[in-house]
C-alpha cells in the first residue's frame, strides 16, 4: 500500500522532487541540525550566547569586505562565504583573547565587535561597485537561496566541527565546567576555550545562511535551552537539540513553503513557541 503524504504537504514534496534549490535547502537543513545541536548545547551550557551573537553580527563585516575586495580588485575566489568565515574566526579570537588576557570587560568587547562588524559591513557594501547587494538575505537569512556550493560548504564545515567535538569532547566539557582544574591536569584550558569559540564562530556562519544574522542566535540557542529544561546530562541535551533543530529546519522549510511565509522568521517563531511551551509543560509535569 502506498503511503500518501497529507494533502497540505503535496506541494512541498513535489517541489523537493522537482526543484533542486529546495533539495539543497532541505539537505543543508538536515546536515546543519547535527552541527547546530552539538554547538548550541555547548553555547548554552557555557553561557556564551552573547559571544555567539556578536560573532553573527561581525559576519556582515566579512561578507561586505569580501564583496568589496572581490569586485574592486577582481578576486573571483574571494566569496562572501569565505569572508564570513574569516570575520567570524577573527572576532572569536579577539573576544577570546581579550577575555583571557587583556583584562577588559568581556561584555564591552562583545558590544564593540557586534557594532563594528555591522558598521564595516554596511560601509563595504555601500561602496562596493557593480550591482547593488541585497542586505535582506544576510540579515534575515534565506535558506531557499542555498546553492550547491553552500551545501558542500555546510557539509565540510559541519564535518570538521563534529570531528573536533568528538575527539575533544571530554576536554571541552572539563574546560567549560572548571577551567582551573583542567589546567592543573595538563589541559591547555585557554586553547580549548578558543577552540570552542572557533567552533561556535563557524557554526554561526552556517547559521546565518539559514536564519540570517539577527535570527541565527535563536536557532542556535533555543533548541538547547529547551532540551536543558528537561535533562541535566549534556549528551541527552545534545541529542534532543539535534532532534529539535532537525524538526525546526525541515518542518519549518516545508510549512513555510506551503504557507508561503519567509522561512527564517517562521522557524525562529516556532522554536521560540516550543521553548515557551516547555515552561508550561514542565509545570504540568510537576
Amino acid at each position, binding site marked *: 500500500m502506498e503511503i500518501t503524504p497529507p494533502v497540505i504537504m503535496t506541494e512541498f514534496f513535489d517541489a523537493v522532487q522537482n526543484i533542486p534549490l529546495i533539495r539543497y535547502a532541505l539537505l543543508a537543513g538536515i546536515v546543519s541540525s547535527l552541527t547546530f545541536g552539538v554547538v548550541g548545547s555547548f553555547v548554552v*551550557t557555557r*553561557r556564551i550566547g552573547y559571544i555567539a551573537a556578536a560573532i553573527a553580527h561581525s559576519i556582515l563585516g566579512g561578507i561586505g569586505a569580501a564583496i568589496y575586495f572581490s569586485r574592486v580588485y577582481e578576486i573571483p575566489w574571494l566569496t562572501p562565504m569565505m569572508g564570513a568565515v574569516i570575520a567570524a574566526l577573527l572576532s572569536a579570537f579577539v573576544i577570546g583573547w581579550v577575555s583571557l588576557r587583556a583584562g577588559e570587560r568581556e561584555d564591552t568587547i562583545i558590544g564593540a565587535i557586534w557594532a563594528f562588524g555591522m558598521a564595516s559591513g554596511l560601509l563595504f557594501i555601500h561602496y562596493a561597485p557593480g550591482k547593488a547587494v541585497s542586505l535582506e538575505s544576510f540579515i534575515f537569512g534565506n535558506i531557499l537561496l542555498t546553492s550547491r556550493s553552500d551545501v558542500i560548504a555546510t557539509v565540510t564545515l559541519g564535518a570538521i566541527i563534529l570531528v573536533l567535538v*568528538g*575527539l*575533544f*569532547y*571530554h*576536554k571541552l*566539557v*572539563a574546560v*567549560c*565546567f*572548571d577551567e*582551573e*582544574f*583542567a*589546567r*592543573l*591536569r*595538563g*589541559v591547555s584550558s585557554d586553547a580549548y576555550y578558543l577552540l570552542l569559540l572557533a567552533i561556535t564562530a563557524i557554526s554561526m556562519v552556517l547559521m546565518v545562511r539559514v536564519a540570517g544574522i539577527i535570527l541565527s542566535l535563536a536557532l542556535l540557542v533555543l533548541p538547547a535551552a529547551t532540551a*536543558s529544561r528537561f*535533562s*541535566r*546530562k*549534556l549528551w*541527552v*541535551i545534545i541529542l534532543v537539540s539535534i532532534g529539535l533543530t532537525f524538526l525546526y529546519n525541515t518542518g519549518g522549510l516545508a510549512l513555510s513553503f506551503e504557507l508561503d511565509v519567509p522561512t527564517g522568521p517562521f522557524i525562529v517563531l516556532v522554536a521560540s513557541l516550543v521553548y515557551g511551551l516547555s515552561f508550561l509543560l514542565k509545570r504540568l509535569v510537576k
Partner: protein
Amino acid sequence: MSLATCVPLLRRSGKLAEFHSTLFGDSLNPVESADIVVSEGLCFGYGRQLVLEDVSFSIPEGESLCMIGPNGGGKSTLLKLMLGLLEPNRGSLSLFGKPADEACKQVGYVPQAVRFDPLFPITAIDIVLMGRLDRHRFGFYSKQCREVSLQALTEVGLEEFANRPFSDLSGGQRQRVLIARALACEPELLLLDEPTANIDLSVEEQFIETLASLKEKMTILMVTHDLDLISEIGDSVLCVNHRVHRHSLPLSGETIREIYSGVRRVEHDRRARHVHGDHSACDHD
C-alpha cells in the same frame, strides 16, 4: 567558636613541630628529603602591594596541615602559588623538589563546591573522571580511568550517586564529589580550600570521617576555619597573614582562643590589628 570545640584539640597528641624559621638568605639549607613542600623567602603581590612576604615553611610527608588566617591574609594566594597557577615574585616554592607548576600532576586540588554553575549539565562520575584528564588524549575515557574514578567515588561514599546530575546533589555531596575528583588524580598531596565552608552541621561529622580516612594515606593541606576539622584532622596549623607562622598541635586553649579572637577581630578591623603580618595575637616565638 566556643571553648568546648577546642577541647578535642587539646586531647590530641600532635606530631612534632617542624618549625623552619628559615629567614632571609637561609637558602643554603639542604632540602630535607622527607619534606614534600618547601617554601623559602617567598614573596608575592598582585601589582605593587605584597600579599605574601618572606614566607618560609615546609610540609613533611604524611603531615596534615591546616591553614588559617584572616580573609585577605593570603591563604588562597598561597594555595594558588602551590598549585603553580601563580608564580612567586621572589624566593622559592618547591613541591616534590620541583617548581610548583611542574609538580601539579602529583597534587589533588579540591576547590569550594559553591564556585560551580549549579545548572551545569554533568553527572557526578563525569566530574570525577576529570581527575584522569592528564591520562586521556581524545575520544572516550579508558576502562581503567572509569574504574579508578568509581573507586574514588566509593571512597567518599557516593558510589550510588555516580550517574546523578551534579545539580541534584546536596552541598556536602557536591564537595565530596570534588574530593573524589582529586582522588582520581591519585595524588600524593591533597590541597583543600575550605572543604566544610558550605556544609550542613548534620553531615559535617560524616564528612570529617571521610577526610580522616584520607589522612592516613596522603599528605593533606587545607584552608579552613573549622575548629572541629582542625582538631580531627590537623597535625599542625599554619597561620597565614601576610607572613606565616607555624603552630604545632596540641595548642593550648589560650593560643587557639587568641588566634581566633585575633582572626575575628581582624575580620572586623583588619587595619587596626593585623597590619603587615602582625602576629601579636599568636602565641609563638
